[in-house]
């Protein structure tokens, strides 16, 4: 039986076994490949998406548990050609190297700023601690989230 998923504001009918992880539905069924596979065990954050605004590891979420929820992926952040402030900050600070972790980092940061527009450094670090960057871009990622947050206050 097809399930209805609400992804980036659009309803999609998908016919997949209910235990399929959301990550694979996004990537293989819907072609939204901005969300990445990194470890498959919720330890690296590359697959992070927002479920009703909350950062969630899509590699751990069976599709049956996300029906009726608002799913936001990296592809859903840009609005009318305008990048989300977190995306802009990552671009400006060049907070990436290979950039494979970037989608997950941005989604974790967007989730944080949505519930806490003026986080402290400690709050930022806690929010992105579960996201792994192997290139070691951590200082710039922290700086980008800081800049996105301060930009929002203006």
């Amino acid at each position: 039986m097809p399930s209805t998923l609400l992804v980036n504001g659009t309803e999609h009918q998908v016919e997949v076994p209910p235990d399929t992880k959301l990550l694979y539905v996004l990537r293989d069924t819907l072609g939204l490949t901005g969300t990445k596979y990194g470890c498959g065990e919720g330890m690296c954050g590359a697959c992070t998406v927002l479920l009703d605004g909350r950062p969630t590891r899509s590699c751990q979420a069976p599709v049956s548990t996300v029906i009726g929820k608002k799913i936001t992926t990296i592809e859903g952040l840009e609005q009318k050609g305008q990048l989300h402030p977190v995306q802009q900050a990552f671009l400006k600070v060049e907070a990436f190297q290979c950039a494979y972790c970037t989608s997950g980092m941005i989604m974790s940061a967007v989730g944080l700023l949505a519930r806490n527009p003026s986080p402290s450094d400690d709050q930022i670090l806690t929010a992105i601690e579960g996201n792994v960057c192997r290139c070691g871009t951590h200082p710039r990622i922290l700086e980008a989230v800081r800049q996105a947050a301060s930009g929002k206050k203006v």
Partner: protein
Amino acid sequence: MSEQAIIREAEVENQQHESVPRLSYGFELRRRDFFKLLGGGMLVCACAGPVLAQESGGRRHNDDDELPQNISAWLHIGEDGAVTVYTGKVEMGQNVRTSLTQQVAEELRAPLDSISLVMGDTALTPYDMGTLGSRTTPTMGPQLRNVSAAARESLIDMAAQRWAADRAKLQASDGRVTDTGSNRSISFGELTKGQELVKLVGDDPVLELPDQWKIAGTSTPKINGRDFVTGKHQYTSDFSLPGMLHGKILRPSAFRATLKWLDTSAAEKIPGVKVVHDANFVGVTALDVWTATKALKAIRAEWSAPQQSCEATLFQDVRKPTTKESDNSGGPPRITGGSVEQGLSSADRTMKQTYTVAYIQHIPLEPRAAVALWENGKLTVWTGTQRPFAVRDELAEAFRLNQDKVRVMVPDTGSAYGGKHTGETAIEAARLAQAAGKPVKLVWTREEEFTWAYFRPGGAIDVHSGVQKDGKVTAWQFDNYNSGPAGMKPPYAFANQHIEFHPTDAPLRQGSYRGLAATANHFAREVHMDELAELVKIDPLALRMKNLSDARAQACLEAAAKAFGWGLQKNSATRGFGIALGEEKGSYVATCAEVEVQSREVRVKRVVEAFECGAIVNPDGLRNQVAGAIMMGLGGALFEAIHFDNGRILNPHLTKYRVPRFSDMPQIDVVLVDRKDIAPAGAGETPIMALAPAISNAIFAATRIRLRSLPMVPDGLPAKSA
């Protein structure tokens, strides 16, 4: 280091990694193939080695003219002015797509956005050994600058001819040639329109000196950066083809295992699933990853594996000499000078210590991935590898094809760190695609990465040294067992030294890792230097300076010490300061670390690193690389280790293998030393090398506990030196 020495080192490395160095068989390139592919315009080819500048072209030329075999890069200027540059190097996060584009723009005098790079495509780019050994900047950079400068000069010639103008008054800038006498100007595209011009250049065009650079040498933002923050960029693992299936591979129970018994009936009952069984190879294909994963779980198999060694005996095992015949005519790498024996006898104090490093994994966040397509007996594979041509050859060998039937393409890749030299994922995807009769994508799981890729070698290093009371090192005996020869050569002027690499039959499949063994060798050398400083009660910085005669090394060390404030703060039981120096592949690094020790917990609070790699091509990109190497290096220094027993990896998950995270991040200050008078060297590796010894030395300064094994504090600070 000479080009020959670097190539020799790369060969040793390749042997050590069981990956046979591949020959370049060359290829027959015909003018007409080029222009058929690219359209008209001008083609400029760089030849490796000295070549007399030749020119051919115009409509009258024979279309079947073959281009030389030793071309290393080429550049095409289309009739619309679009510049396409072809290089066998690949982009995997080190930002060379941007830094090479800057160098082309600089010499060609063309806008950055008119230039695109085709990278790592075996059908379109010239042969390249691989993107490794920090070679892109020092070798590909000058080659692309050469072709670009030659193209610029040709364009000026063409304009002078067209206008019958005084060539001396013509200038190229921003994609146009302008006559400063009359102010008329013409675009590059207008000049190449209707032409099929080929120009060959050797190694010797006149290039802009780094202190004249306007585009190179600046912090140009990453090319296509926007595609990476929007999720638009397609890594290999994101790539898909019409009708494509997804593959999974059944892995043996242990290394070196053979298949005894197999039951695939349950898997084959799953709709859409196909099982492929060929000797020890068992894989499945399905319409989606989730189904393929389920099918794999439904397969029952029994394997038989030989008894294999364990981690507990690693540092004894690596001392057994290799049983393999070396085909390296010079024997294992060795550096000698003076007499160690005499040096020891003239020393005031002597010291013998052993240092060890564990096996570790690269963990590139994008796992190995490949998409394979068979069409009319030809095989095309998209895969994230550092060595597209070597992978092409591996595929040709595995499927008994001629090389010209195989094409390998490398989309910009989700990191590699030396870990993606080999083609196993490409071969596996191609075997599945061959059986399925459809294109197949295979993305390794993290567990597969942790187990079936190769590792940075573990090893042991013995140092036996002598020192005078004034800090002068009189003897240096250095023996590296298994971890590798890279970076064994000290930056110090040791009068009496014997330095040798001893290969062994490694217990695990091992290969290169960012900086190769230089991290291990720098760790042993720089911790040992600290031990000597302690022995004769001389400041660690002063002892290093005492033994240095290389002005670049001295300057780098001084830059780090000054920025760090070396000696301004006193060590205490809870706070220690350490310093270390490194030199490798034409670049210099000096790292200062401040650690905080609370009971048994060690935190790296601050790292100041000075780095000098000649003229800097992109300062911001370089800062990113250097800070990244420091963050990555924290893992191997403090807690990363692969645990293994009897052919099995015991911790193949991120839950059991700790990588650096935000909570590990120290304050990082990068000091770049820009030497515009020295040709640029690579920067991907050296910045990682001096971190671990600086931390070890800082821990000692605080605690008097000397840590001689990497990782140093996987379970917190040990109770005594270890």
